């Protein structure tokens, strides 16, 4: 999972793209909840948002276990 999360998709890591997806899932969750509970509309968007948010949280929680950047490439502000 770490390899997948740290792989590049375009210029960004998959972890970053999944954060964007999380924002969208959270939007579905809140908007869907308002539509379902306050306006009596379908619960599909709410269910999708809630399920998506939970799955994404469980995926994004996987830590980064990839090999550490070579010392000469490391940020000089990093302390060991």
């Amino acid at each position, binding site marked *: 999972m770490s390899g997948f*999360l*740290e792989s590049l998709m375009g210029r960004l890591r998959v*972890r*970053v793209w999944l*954060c964007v997806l*999380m*924002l969208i899932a*959270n*939007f579905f*969750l*809140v*908007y869907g*909840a*308002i539509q*379902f*509970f*306050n306006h009596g509309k379908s619960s599909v968007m709410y269910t999708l948002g809630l399920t998506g*948010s939970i799955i994404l*949280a*469980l995926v*994004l*929680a*996987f*830590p*980064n*276990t*990839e090999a*550490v*950047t070579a010392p000469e490439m*490391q*940020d*000089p*502000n*990093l*302390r*060991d």
Partner: protein
Amino acid sequence: MGKGQEEFSAELSKEVAQLEAINSKPFFGKLAGYAKFMGPASMEAATTLGAGSFTAAVMMGASNGYSMLWVPFYSYLFGLFMLHLGAKFAIYRRDSVIEMQNTYHTKVVGSFATGLVACFLAMVVFSFGQYALGTDALASGLKLIHIDFPRKYNWSLILAISAGLSLLYGKSHKLVRLVEKSMQVMIGIMLVTFLAVVLKTGVNFGAMIKGLLVPTLPRGVEGITMAVAGLTAAMGVGDWVQYHYAAKTRNYTPAHEGLSIFDTVFGGLVPVTLVLSFIGIAFAETFSGKSGIPEKAVDLANALVVVLPSVWVKVGFYLGIIAIVVSTMVGMSILAAQSLCHALNLPEDPKKFYWKLGLLLPQLGFLGAFFGKPLWAVIIAAALQSLFNWLSGFSWYLLANDSRAMGKHVVKHYLVNLGIIVSVVALNLAFITFVLTEMGV
């Protein structure tokens, strides 16, 4: 190296040597050893325990009885994951979190969203409410012992103590520890005085345990809104940043990692939960389920004092509120100065004009003694926070998992990352709820 810096290095080396010895002790030996080095979490806890959290505890206790005691507890519990990150960033980076965000996620996220919006602006604007509450408590408390010191004058006492203490911060290792100890003393005053109040109002232990540990939420949108408010109530981006800078000011090293966990639990979670629970319980016992109770927190506080039997407990209650306000003003002033420096890429130097300006700008809140809170400014600051705090949240999570920024010190535990993600999702939900509410959805 100047004399001050030499002293600072010597003190730090001594502290690190002592902590290394403590870290190798068994569990209970560690706990006893860490206690004397606590501090950064007290800076954060004393700021969290402000007029806002006091008002929320009063209102929730009076309206919902014991059922909402879980809010500050769970909010702080999830916040611990972010404080852990704040300590990691302080320990393993030479720069601070705002500079890290500027480097990896642009200045919009670092200097603007975290430094200026979540910290500096919030500290300046939310100080008015502190003075409004503090001056009222000071005048009412002194009136009980027949001393007339009205609000139009007594703000100067709060200003003198809080500005005086905050101006000492950062000047030397000893003065940093002195300010931290002062915050601990003020938290101690809150604990003692509010416990005395609870002993007079009474407590239902069964209801307290249930209210503290079992979260109850209404179904639907109201439940989501309440959960979001609950998770962000006691702990926000400003609190994470404050703890980070407090740890940075103490020059935290890898030897401080165990201490930071102990400090955030026993210097942060425990006192914050206890103080806010005592307040909630006192108001739940006195007002919950009764009709015709006052609608404002200040009126509720004054009504509670009327039913307290002893004049010294009454005075103690007001003293607790004054400790809340003074310690929050100290913490807010220091965070305003630190965030201003780092947002503008200026070195933290207590001798510089801009540091003193950053420290003293929140003290403009003294005007709250005359005019109360400027609602328009509070609404703008809260709206900006709702709009931008989620950016800071994602940025903290991504930096913690970025090996370019943290090397081998990236977050290693699944559950820690999960806790961080839950805190970030709470900020997202606050942002989306705010936008949708403003759009009238």
